[in-house]
């Protein structure tokens, strides 16, 4: 698998700083699970946090803090290394965790035109959802404000300029106008996050409508 569309430095730094809404965190963690390049970049931003922590002024802990900590670890077993959970399906671990399983565990709702979606439970400051777009169908038009991330998990979609396959992430802002279409061959499944709650507009007949935007 060759990933060609990656996370931005801004998103990776915000992720390392712990400043992303939960829905965006999920998309970033899912992409990083599939992408060593972004895993390494995320690690370099974590190191900035490490340097800031190291160089920060100290604020004294309470007098008995160390004694309390030693007492606490006394009864605290150290975890031992276990084999990391490697999901067998198309969802990397962080996503499988939110869904509660793989594809078969998703509770899809029809949104028309053969497209289905499932909203995932996250904090309200942003929305994460899975999208199921039948092969050859346009990605539904849903107005959004702010930033939208779309990560392909299965199949592929393409717009005028580019193709996005498994692992690829598309970063769109509200000005972006394009008409992505799920490519023929395999139904396309994406994980998407939007800044504001999404507002699906009335579904427009697919394919007949050339001017769609995501």
């Amino acid at each position, binding site marked *: 698998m060759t990933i060609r569309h990656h996370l931005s430095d801004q998103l990776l730094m915000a992720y390392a700083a712990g400043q992303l809404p939960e829905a965006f965190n999920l998309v970033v963690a899912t992409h990083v*699970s599939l992408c060593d390049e972004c895993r390494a970049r995320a690690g*370099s931003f974590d190191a*900035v946090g490490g340097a800031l922590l*190291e160089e920060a002024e*100290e604020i004294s802990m309470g007098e008995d803090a160390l004694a309390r900590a030693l007492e606490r670890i006394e009864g605290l077993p150290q975890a031992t290394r276990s084999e990391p959970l*490697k999901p067998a399906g198309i969802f990397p671990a962080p996503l499988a965790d939110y869904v509660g399983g793989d594809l078969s565990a998703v509770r899809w709702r029809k949104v028309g035109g053969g497209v289905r979606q499932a909203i995932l439970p996250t904090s309200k400051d942003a929305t994460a959802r899975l999208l199921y777009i039948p092969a050859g169908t346009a990605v539904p038009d849903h107005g959004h404000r702010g930033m939208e991330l779309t990560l392909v998990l299965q199949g592929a979609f393409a717009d005028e300029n580019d193709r996005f396959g498994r692992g690829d992430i598309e970063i769109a802002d509200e000005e972006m106008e394009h008409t992505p279409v799920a490519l023929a061959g395999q139904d396309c499944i994406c994980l998407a996050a939007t800044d504001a709650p999404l507002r699906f507009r009335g579904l427009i007949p697919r394919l007949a409508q050339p001017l769609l935007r995501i």
Partner: protein
Amino acid sequence: MLDARDAAVTEQALPLPLGSVRFGSRQKKDGLLATTDDTDWADLLVKVRDHQDRAAFAALFRHFAPRVKAFLMKSGAGASLAEECAQDVMATLWQKAHLFDPARASVATWVYTIARNRRIDALRKARRAEPEELDWGPEPEPDQAEVMEAQEETERLGRALAALPAPQRTLIERAFYGELSHSEIAAETGLPLGTIKSRIRLALDKLRHQLG
């Protein structure tokens, strides 16, 4: 090119906002170099990991707990919440020591990630999705050169941070202390992150190769 003395003067001349970098480790105290930063934190954490060494844990606690507390307070936690969370972070360090690999990240970076996650939990009450764990545990005998490189990164980055113009450094601090939303964060840090990325990338390539 600045020579060492010029660099020192430049550093001294920079305003030092609360919570900015300290220069203690590079200043002479009573004619002796301060030794705090010479402590091999990775070695201590490996002792915690492999031998449940309580003395090593105590040394790590004395160094990192007050910094974690400061980090959390600057991120908006009150003193007592920050104290409790710092306790939690250090307990997590004990419990999850088996995940620490000194060839992957410095102790400061590792502690930072635990503290950040605890902060998200405590202050934002949100979950944080973590990337899939890789099939790489700490190697029994990691390459010492790799370990040293990973451990020295924090100090090198600290120096690079100190050398940044104050406004740029402040922006980075504000991002990490939660004062900027994700859309306000400027990703251009001016820090030499490429070398760190390359090191981690190489380690990942090596791992993938081993896994075949």
